[in-house]
């Protein structure tokens, strides 16, 4: 007759604690990656929207005439006589957009885009030297520098710059809207 005695030793408490700790640390480390991934995808989306909002307004501005068709304002930048500064339907030349800002952004039809409440679009227009467009000029030179800036909750996310020349008026592409 054969007598077989099986004596098996299990996992001790110390081993269990150590392995649990190792797994815990690995898990926490892995989870920490998820946070930045989530944030980066949202940041990417915000950059996309910001760039698009800036492009949309820049496109609108550069389709306007360089010089007001009703009166040549000379050195002055901003809305002209009879135009309302808060209503883009009245804008008919590039520099009417000087200091235009809206939070949230408005469409060219003046409809407020309530889907993006914390966003702001701002326009700055200056006369610049033809020989060196990086130098601002106090008087009209025939060249204007347009800067459109987009920010969200006070943080600037996009800024685009374009130059518009008085020669653009002779090309005949400017839209006829505005007063």
């Amino acid at each position, binding site marked *: *007759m*054969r*007598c*077989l*005695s*099986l*004596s*098996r030793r*299990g996992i001790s408490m110390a081993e269990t604690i150590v392995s649990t700790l190792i797994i815990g640390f690995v898990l926490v480390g892995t989870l920490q990656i998820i946070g930045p991934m*989530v944030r980066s*995808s*949202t940041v*990417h*989306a*915000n950059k*996309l*929207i910001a760039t*698009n*909002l800036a492009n*949309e307004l820049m*496109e*609108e501005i*550069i*389709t306007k005439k360089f010089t007001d068709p009703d009166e040549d304002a000379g050195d002055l930048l901003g809305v002209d006589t009879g135009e309302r500064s808060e209503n883009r339907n009245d804008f008919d030349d590039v520099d009417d957009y000087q200091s235009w800002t809206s939070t949230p952004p408005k*469409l*060219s*039809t003046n*409809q407020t*885009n309530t*889907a*993006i409440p914390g966003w702001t679009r701002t326009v700055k227009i200056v006369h610049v030297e033809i020989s060196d467009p990086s130098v601002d000029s106090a008087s009209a030179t025939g060249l204007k520098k347009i800067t459109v800036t987009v920010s969200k909750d006070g943080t600037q996310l996009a800024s685009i710059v374009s130059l518009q020349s008085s020669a653009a008026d002779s090309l*005949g*592409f*400017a*839209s*006829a*809207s505005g007063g």
Partner: protein
Amino acid sequence: MTRLSRSGFTLIEMATSLSIISVLMLGLSGAIVVGSYAIPTTTDTGLGDQAVIDTLNKMRSDLQGADQYKFREDASIKQLELRMVSTGAIGEPGKVCYVYTIADNTMTRAVDSEVAETLLSTADNFLITAAVDGNDVVSAHILMSATDTIQRYYESFVTLPFKPEDK
């Protein structure tokens, strides 16, 4: 004769550990549910916005290469038909047609007689207004709105270098 001598867990130990694990899992699942709200949806990641921007870019590019412009709309569709400038290149498109179907919010683009490609299925409005000089279209203003997007309302101003004839 085989005699097995094993020291296992008692029922009390098992019941206690299971209850502890259950309570911990319950707490953890609550944290996961709260945490899941922070996971961005496809809307949050800007995929919907990217699709609309891509569509507008395509339309802008086609408009700038057109020498004939025809827009018609009725109660069910809005259709923009463009005849493209011929450069003599092999395979160049002769006609591009955008169709916005109001009932299912889709925007499609068809080149010549090819099968139309669906660009958007979330567009809930589409408008295009042409600025004309005589019978020539000098610029176009596109307005579009789309659901499942961050920006929701989009617009584009396009100057048309070939000043296509408005048919």
